[in-house]
Every structure is written in C-alpha cells, then in structure tokens.
C-alpha cells in the first residue's frame, strides 16, 4: 500500500509548489496525474518514489522490497550499449528473478509494444519513441509493486501512446500493483481510468469525461 498524508513541497526559492496532497493506493490501483505545466507533477512523482524528501507530510510505502519502484522516465530510457532485450530484462535481473521467466515476460511485452524485431539490437540504435516504449517494457517486465511513469507517451504516436497506457493500466489489475502515471496526454488514457489533477492545494479527483 502507498499512503500519502498531507505531503507538500516547497522549492528552494520558497515558492510552495503543492501542499496537502492526500492519496491512498493499494495493489491493483492505477491513477493518472494531470495538471498544467509547472504545477509539480514530476516533483510529486519524485516525492512518491523517494527521490525527493517532502517538505511537509509523509509518504508511507508498505512494500517489503528495498527497490519497490519501476520508473519510466522521459530521458533515462536505457543502457544504450546493451541489447534491447537486456534492457527490458534489467529490473528482473537486478531483482534476482529467474532469467528464463524475465526473458519470457520481456519478449511478450516487446512483441506487444512492437519492438520484438529489435531484440538483439543495441538500445542506442532505437529511435526516441522506441526507447520510450522500451522503458515501459522494462518497467512492466519487472515484478515491482509500484510503477511510476513520467509522461511515458510524449514521444509516441496516437496508437502507440494508447497501447502503452493500456498496458500500464492493465498491469495494475493483472499484476496487482500500483501504477501512477503523470501525463498531459488525456487522449491516450484508457476509458474509465482514475484521473487526478494536481493543484497547489493538493490532488483533485476528476471524473473521466
């Protein structure tokens, strides 16, 4: 379970980015965080993932893993010199899972994301959009209980963006994990997914229109 109580973040110049963020997620939950640029969506994600300390409040993560988070970041898309398959298997390998199972899951995801023909290529040979899909495959191929994705579709075309979002949100239910996606791309979100908007005074639930 991931519990966020009254979390706030103030920038070094004293400006309050957001405050009083309340959130409670259990395995199987998936949310999309949206909001105008500069409201602190990525910062909130960093706070949730433990990369930044909140100025106020607390984040409680009840996972028993030392490394519970699978990140999908915009610019850190992979180990460029390693193969696409090795990149997709990275988290599973680091977590000590059976290589055979990790490869199987990774291959399945790479196929689903249209990267199966690039398996043996080096990651640096992929385009920006392909690297972004690879980052998503790496996160999904792991068994980590929380996936944190920062704008995972900003370099993707409409079809691929929808496919990526669908896989991410399905993964919450299928793999029983928490998925948090920061995005501006509302069109790519699956119908009936939970969307919250970050404002300076906290998160607001917004029904899907």
């Amino acid at each position: 379970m991931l519990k966020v109580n009254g979390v706030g973040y103030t920038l070094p110049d004293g400006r309050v980015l957001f405050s009083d963020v309340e959130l409670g997620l259990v395995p199987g939950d998936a949310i999309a965080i949206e909001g105008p640029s500069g409201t602190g969506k990525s910062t909130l994600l960093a706070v949730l993932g433990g990369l930044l300390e909140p100025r106020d409040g607390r984040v409680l993560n009840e996972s028993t893993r030392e490394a519970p988070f699978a990140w999908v970041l915009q610019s850190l898309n992979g180990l460029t010199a390693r193969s696409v398959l090795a990149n997709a298997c990275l988290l599973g390998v680091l977590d000590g899972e059976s290589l055979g199972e990790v490869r199987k899951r990774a291959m399945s995801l790479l196929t689903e994301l249209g990267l199966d023909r690039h398996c043996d290529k080096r990651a640096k040979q992929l385009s920006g959009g392909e690297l972004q899909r690879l980052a998503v495959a790496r996160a999904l191929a792991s068994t980590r209980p929380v996936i944190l994705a920062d704008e995972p579709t900003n370099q993707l075309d409409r079809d691929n963006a929808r496919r990526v979002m669908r896989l991410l949100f399905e993964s919450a239910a299928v793999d029983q994990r928490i998925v948090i996606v920061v995005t501006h791309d509302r069109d790519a979100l699956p119908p009936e997914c939970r969307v919250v908007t970050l404002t300076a005074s906290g998160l607001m639930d917004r029904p899907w229109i």
Partner: protein
Amino acid sequence: MTDPPKARVGVRASRAAREALANIAARVGLSVAVTAAFVGFLGSCFVTEANAVVDARVYAARLAAQGYSILRVSVSQDSPEGLKGADCLGLAKVEGVQAQLWMSKAEDAHWFAIGGPPVPIRRTGGDILGFLSATNPDGVSHWSGAPILLDVSSDLATGKRQSFPVHLVQGASGRAVGRDAVLAFPTSLTMLGGGFEGNALLVSDLPAPNSSAESQSVESCSLVVREDERLKAKNAVSLVFSASRGYSVQWVMLNADALDPPRSRFETRPTRWLWLVGAIVFLAFWSLYLRLRRSEYAVYAVSGLGVTKLSILVSTEFLTLVTVGLLYGSPILGIGVYRAHLGWSEVNVGMASAGRYFVASLLACLALNVFASMQCRSATLDALKDR
C-alpha cells in the same frame, strides 16, 4: 517523509557486479581505451624510471671514466682580498687536487705576433703541465720550458702544427720588442671546460721575469680535482677562499650540470613525479568515462541501486578493466625487461614508480566512483520534467 519498511529484500551486490561485467562486454571499444590508457601510463612510469637508472649509471660511468673535475677559484673585482699565483700553488696540498693552473689578469697580458696581427697572451703557472702531459701527451711532448702561456683569443693555434715561432711585440701596435723568436707548441685545453675552449701555446722561453710570477695577482685559479674527492676538495677550498671574503669557488665544465653527483642527480630527476602526473591524467580520463556513462548509471540508480551498490557496479567495471590491463600488460612489460637486459635495481625503481601510479590511480578512481555514485541521484532528478 518516506518511511523505509523493515527487512526489505534489495538488489544484491553480486548482481550489480554482474551488470558491470555485462556493460564492459557491451562497450568493447571504450573498455579497451580505458585499459590501454591505464596500462600505458603504468608502462610509461616503469620504462621512464628504469631508464633513469640506466642513465644515472651511464652518467656515473662517464664521470668515473673522465676521472676529474675542474674547480675554479676567482675573486670579485671589488673585493679587498686578492688572489696570487702562490695561493693557487698552495692549493696543491688540498686532498683530491691533482693539478692546478693560475692565469694572470687580462691587463697583464703580453702581446705576441705569429706572422699576423698581435694577440694578447696571458701568463699562467702551476703544475698543470704534468696533467696535460698525462691527458694529451702529443700536445706537450716537445715542450721543455717552465711557464705556460694561454691563448685567450682561442683561434690562434689550431694544433695542426707541432711548433712555430712567435715574437713578443709592443702592445697592439705590433712593434717587435725582442730580437729572437720563441718557439711555441699548441695543445688543446678544451678538457678544462668553460673559459678554456681554446688552445694553449707552450713556449720555450718567456721574455718576462719568471721569479715574480707566483707573487703576481692572478685572475683565477683552476684546480684539477679527482672525481672521488671532489666534494671534499670543494669544501676544503671553500673554507680557505670563503664567499664572505669575495671569493667564488665553482665547478666549471662544458656541461656544468654534469657535475652533480650521480646519486643526487638521480634523486632530483623530474621524472620521479611521473607516477603522479600519470595518476592525475588517468583520473581525468576515468572521470570522462564516468561522465560518458552518467545517464546509464542514473538508470541503475532509479532501478534500485543505492550509492553502495552503484559504487560496487562502477568499481567492478574499473577493477575489471584494470585487471585485464595488468594481465595483458605484465607479460609485455616482462618481455621488455628481459630483452632490455634490465638489472634488479632498474626493475626495482621502475616497479616503485609503476606501483605508486597504480595505488594512486586505484585509490583516486575508487573515491571518484563513490562520488559519482552519490551524484547519480541528481542525474535522475534532472531526468524528471517540470520540476
């Protein structure tokens, strides 16, 4: 704040190390470059320092073969103390002094003519002749007189002729003073070093009175000193002709720096710091490598590797490259040592320098690895947009 749950299972160090090996294999070109740089600097330290020993040994042998050094005593013009020919003769008693030579002042020069314009020739004295005879027997074999006259214009006598007549003249006017010519023999004084690059004319008779030669003021006094007694001799001479009284006691040779004792020269060689230069340059090279790999290490950082595990990963990459370098470099170095017939002392000094480079590079790079691992967090945050 974020609460860390208890008893968590994390990424094992061995997995981080395995990733490091996979990364090395994936970046063969970069890996080879780092390895070559490390071993290259190590080999350079070894070879340069081993060569320094060889050079020092050759230099010592050259000095030993030469067998003597020249110590010159002179007095400054404004000093109330004087320097007389007799003072120079007295220095013959100093231990290590093999011969001595004094030379009169320029204003006391005689003018001689040898079928051309007159040239100034100065009076000299001392027992240098015996030394010259020993080192250049042909040059002085025909000479039988007492004093020696030095040619300070240096191009007068070429040494091609065994002897020739010279006439004493009146100053620069060239008017003859004596009726008969005196016989002169040229001999090279180059061996005496700075100021003596010309030839000496050894003349059979001297027009000026000989008896007062030792009591006249002289410009300088050159002492031929045995190599093994050179420091002792200089100390003894410096004690008598102290700098506080306006005297100057200096070694003179064509290459003045060659008068350092071989050991002191070896110990002050600039290349003794090569290991430090090598370590600094390699550290810069390694920091470039880390900079190049920064985004990949950041991927590991967000994948659950903390500072410790990330340090293990980076350090495993470093140590593997270094080990591979040593495995390939050592036999090459060994063959080089064997083929160059290097002795134990050369190998020892070379190894000391290479060892210092190795340890310094190792410690500095490992420290840099930890620092770089700590910086990965900021690289991760940089990757987040809109913060």
